[in-house]
């Protein structure tokens, strides 16, 4: 009897695919994050110097997360879930978030905003949007600030219960956003704890803090499938990049590849996070400002940024600018 039960199986292949694909559909995020499909339980690291529009990408991802798929006949293409934003940089501007959300709601789809923007400047007061949907989306955005790594750890340890409480109301959390993961690096690095009793007492160093952070996030992702995106500021300046540029110019045959006219230069950046975090990250994208500027209209000069996927390593660069309505790719 039991052996027969083993062979007959629990479900057919069709049923299994139907179950798995409906839950784990890949997230299609807005450009420049669109090149690689991201799934729940992926950990994406957006790394770049300051400023390079990292927080803008995070805000854009949060907006896509809280918007519904359809509402009153308009297609928004969102993920219809909650987004959790842990602000370690403590520089989040809610007015900017609110403005971007209103612009998205007013136009329905992203391409329409671009066309409208080029025709005229959008006045803040004259945007027509659905109030009810706006309030719903703003309520789906959960925000907390952390002023040091103890507060960060305390937040992570109690996040599970918070997410469970939301689930009890029928709300799913789809994204965990952290800005930025290396914020307390110097403070933790310099703090030395002399163990008073017991030689096995864990000291508050960068290593142990980040190992605990990774542990907690890993547990959270296991219990609640969501996409984790963290920004990271490069702590060591452009000197390393300039030296690499000079080196590469002298030896033209190394690490140059031209695809479609855009030169992909594998510029190094120095990794300073402990290996626990480095191995935890499943995807990595590098942003940096370019020297070009794009003149959109007479008085507006936007700086162009490069984005390069490091993990998985794609050998071309995307160019994008940050306009009033958000991040847009430049051809």
């Amino acid at each position, binding site marked *: 009897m039991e052996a027969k039960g083993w062979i007959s199986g629990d479900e057919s292949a069709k049923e299994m695919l139907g179950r798995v694909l409906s839950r784990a559909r890949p997230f299609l995020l807005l450009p420049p994050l669109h090149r690689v499909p991201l799934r729940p339980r992926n950990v994406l690291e957006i790394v770049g110097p300051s400023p390079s529009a990292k927080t803008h990408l995070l805000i854009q991802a949060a907006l896509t997360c809280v918007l519904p798929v359809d509402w009153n006949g308009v297609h928004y293409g969102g993920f219809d879930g909650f987004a959790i934003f842990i602000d370690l940089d403590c520089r989040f501007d809610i007015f900017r978030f609110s403005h971007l959300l209103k612009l998205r709601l007013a136009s329905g789809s992203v391409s329409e905003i671009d066309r409208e923007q080029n025709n005229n400047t959008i006045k803040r007061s004259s945007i027509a949007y659905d109030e009810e949907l706006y309030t719903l989306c703003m309520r789906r955005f959960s925000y*907390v600030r952390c002023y040091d790594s*103890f507060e960060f750890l305390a937040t992570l340890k109690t996040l599970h219960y918070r997410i469970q409480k939301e689930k009890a109301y029928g709300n799913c959390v789809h994204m965990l956003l952290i800005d930025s993961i290396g914020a307390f690096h110097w403070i933790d*690095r310099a*703090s030395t704890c002399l163990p008073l009793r017991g030689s096995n007492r864990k000291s508050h160093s960068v290593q142990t803090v980040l190992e*605990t952070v990774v542990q907690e996030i890993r547990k959270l992702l296991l219990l609640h499938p969501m996409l984790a995106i963290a920004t990271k500021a490069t702590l060591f300046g452009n000197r390393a990049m300039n030296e690499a540029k000079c080196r590469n110019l002298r030896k033209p045959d190394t690490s140059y590849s031209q695809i479609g006219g855009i030169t992909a230069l594998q510029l190094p950046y120095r990794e300073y996070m402990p290996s626990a975090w480095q191995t935890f990250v499943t995807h990595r994208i590098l942003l940096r400002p370019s020297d070009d500027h794009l003149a959109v209209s007479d008085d507006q000069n936007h700086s162009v940024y490069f984005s390069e996927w490091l993990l998985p390593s794609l050998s071309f660069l995307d160019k994008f600018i940050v306009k009033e309505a958000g991040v847009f790719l430049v051809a």
Partner: protein
Amino acid sequence: MAPLKSLEQEYPILDSNFQSFCASHDIFSVEDLLLHDLYVLAAFAEQESSSERLKQGIAQVLSIIDGQHQPWLNGIELLEDAQRNKHVLSTGCEGIDLLLHGGLRVGQLTELVGPSSSGKTQVCLLAASNVAKKHIGSVVYLDTGNSFSPQRVTQFICQHSDPAIDQAKHRTLQKVMNNISCKSVFDIFTMFDVLHQLEFNLRSQMQGGDCKVQLLIVDSVSSMVTPILGGSGSQGIHSWHALMISAGYLLKKLAHEHNIAVLVTNHTVGGDGGISKPALGESWKSIPHVRLLLSCDHGGSICNVSILKHPSMAVGKAARFMIHN
């Protein structure tokens, strides 16, 4: 790093049995608990004789930890707080006000970068006198280079008033000057002292009243940090970064939690290719909300200010202004 023992009085479930159980796992304080896996600890507690009580103790500790981070807010609550408390303070300088859509925003850290004698201190004094006079709020001015000049502040305040009414003018002047409190700070440790004292005063103060601190000026933050730069070996440099960033976070915390606009000044150093760049390096770049570059024409009083970084405005936007004598 309060030891667990100190919590026993308030939470009797964290008794000596719980403390010795934690000690056997090298946990002596709540901070140690933050670095440990609580599920693993609960699994260990299962094997003890008093497992139920121990697990209740762990649950109690978790609720203590829940009170140790900042409160969760949703988008609507954040927006309401920002609209109610995070208004804009005019600097008294039209060019800067126009560039920043109104002036210095409460809750944000604004940094003025510029070479020496580019007008940074003048802008600080002007902002201090303007806020003290027009916004009926008090100003805290931390001065590192003995550059605070009461005479200059008096000039700014009396600029626009009617010269005929002397008596009333004198009284207003007194009141406004009383609202600006200037402290000389020459090193970063004194600054930490002053800021912690300010935080304590603000937390214990009653809400309302017209002596509420609206603006905090630190002139200049770079001259306070650079003396430590010559520390011995690599340890010295790490401490410098850590102190600088801790100071930045303390300023941001004061700004957001107590609804103050913070203005700091920074000087420039030579960078790659001879182009000057702001001092304090790469790690300081992500501390301020807004970074402005200031430069003054030789001899003239016309200054140029441009945006280096802003949460919602394009880099490079510039404006010109004049500081009257």
